[in-house]
Structures are given as C-alpha cells and as structure tokens.
C-alpha cells in the first residue's frame, strides 16, 4: 500500500464544492451503488446500507451548504482498493463549527474510484461518555 494522491484529490475536490452548494455532482459521481455500500453518519439513526436509504442520503447531502476546512488528510491505495482518512472543521450555515473525522473506502469500478464506505464522526470527550 502506498500514499495515493488521486484519492486525496477526489476528496479535496468534493469538499471544495460545498461552499457553493455544488457538491451534488461530485456526490453522484463518487458513491458506488453496488451491494455492500455502508454509510455511517454521526447521528444515532445514520446507518445506511440499502439502496433507497443511500439515495436519500445522497440527495440530502447535495443540498447542504457548508464551509469545510481540511485539517489533515491521508490517502492510501493498492490495486483496486484505497481509503482516505481526514479531520475537517465544518462551518454550518447557522454558524456552528463542528469537528468531523472521516474514513472513506474506495473500490475501483470500470476504471473509476467509487466510494463503498463512509464513516463520519464527531469526537466526544471520554469524560462525557461515562
């Protein structure tokens, strides 16, 4: 496995689309629609593994406006599988700033990288857990 600028750039381009709300196109182009795709969001209800749920997730994500500042990002790949890991600060339209960590797993389908897994999470201090 080696560092993978191609995947890093896919994610960075995607984030760059959010300030204009123009991310719908990159979302459509990036998500795989094959069986086995799983999306984990931060909310307790956000576990998406079926096609209908995935379509709802994609459509909802296409309408959000946010400013995303990338604090760090790494990407690795080998052959037909790759993954990216990042930490970003997301500024929402209501002014709230949320630190978010992402893991994305990509699979090459017909010569194009497609995302088969996303795990988005918000850190929670251990003291608040119990």
């Amino acid at each position: 496995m080696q560092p993978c600028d191609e995947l890093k750039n896919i994610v960075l381009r995607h984030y760059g689309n959010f300030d204009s709300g123009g991310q719908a196109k990159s979302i459509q182009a990036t998500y795989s629609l094959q069986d086995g795709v799983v999306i984990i969001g931060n909310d307790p209800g956000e576990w998406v593994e079926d096609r209908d749920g995935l379509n709802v997730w994609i459509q909802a994500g296409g309408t959000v406006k946010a400013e995303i500042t990338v604090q760090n990002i790494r990407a690795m790949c080998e052959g037909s599988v790759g993954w990216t890991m990042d930490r970003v600060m997301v500024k929402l339209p209501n002014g709230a700033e949320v630190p978010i960590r992402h893991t994305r797993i990509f699979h090459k389908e017909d010569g194009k990288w497609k995302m088969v897994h996303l795990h988005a999470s918000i850190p929670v201090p251990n003291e608040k857990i119990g």
Partner: protein
Amino acid sequence: MQESAELKNLVLQLYEKEASGGLFNFAAQLYSRQEGVLVIGSDPGDRYEGYESVIGFYQAAGAAGLKIKVDDLMAYSEGPFGWAVDRVIARLPNGVEIPVRHTYVFHKERDAWKIVHAHISVCVPDESFGIGKER
C-alpha cells in the same frame, strides 16, 4: 468485492478478547507494523499513528474490560485488502451502555490479515449542533 467471513471472525475475536482481558495481546498481533497505520478513536485526542502508538492505545483500553454486543457487522475483501464495518453496544464496567461504530481496514501481509486503519466513534445526535451537514 466479496463478503468475508474471515474478517468478520477476526473482528468478533477482537471483541471477545476485549471482554476476557486478552485485548492487548490480540491487538498487538492483529495490527500491521507497516508505515501508514492510523487509528481514530472517539475522544478528540484519540489519533494514533504507527504501530507503537496504536498498541499503546490498546494497552490503555485493554484494562477497561468492555463487554461488546454486536448489532450489525459486515465485512468485504478484494485481493489483499478488506474492510469491516459494525455497530455495537459497549457495556462499561460501571454498567453504562454506549452505542459505538467501527470501521476497520485490513491488509494481507504474509498470508495474515492485519489492520492498517481503524475508526471508532460514538453517536452524536444532529440536533446537538444543527440540522444539515456535509456528506
């Protein structure tokens, strides 16, 4: 990509060891020693890069004696790579139950699966910070 019972079993073994006290030794075998290994934990400061750092994290976690109930677990592989995704309930020794989600990325090294990335998180409701977010 195909479903992988082998990777599923490795994750289940990891959770069994978490409850029985053998977590540190099992994690020490299961994590890759190659460059680029990264674990993201649930706490804001939980970011461990490199084998020694990751194992230090498991050494501290191993003493916790968590009981893990697996709600969903899926695993896939293709060639020398695989990944597993789950959501579990972790029961702390004080009885508190926490919903936790994991992602693991595996790489096959000398015929043995090794973890090269893990992402561990707890749920945070959307209402706590606003309604919309990026995807």
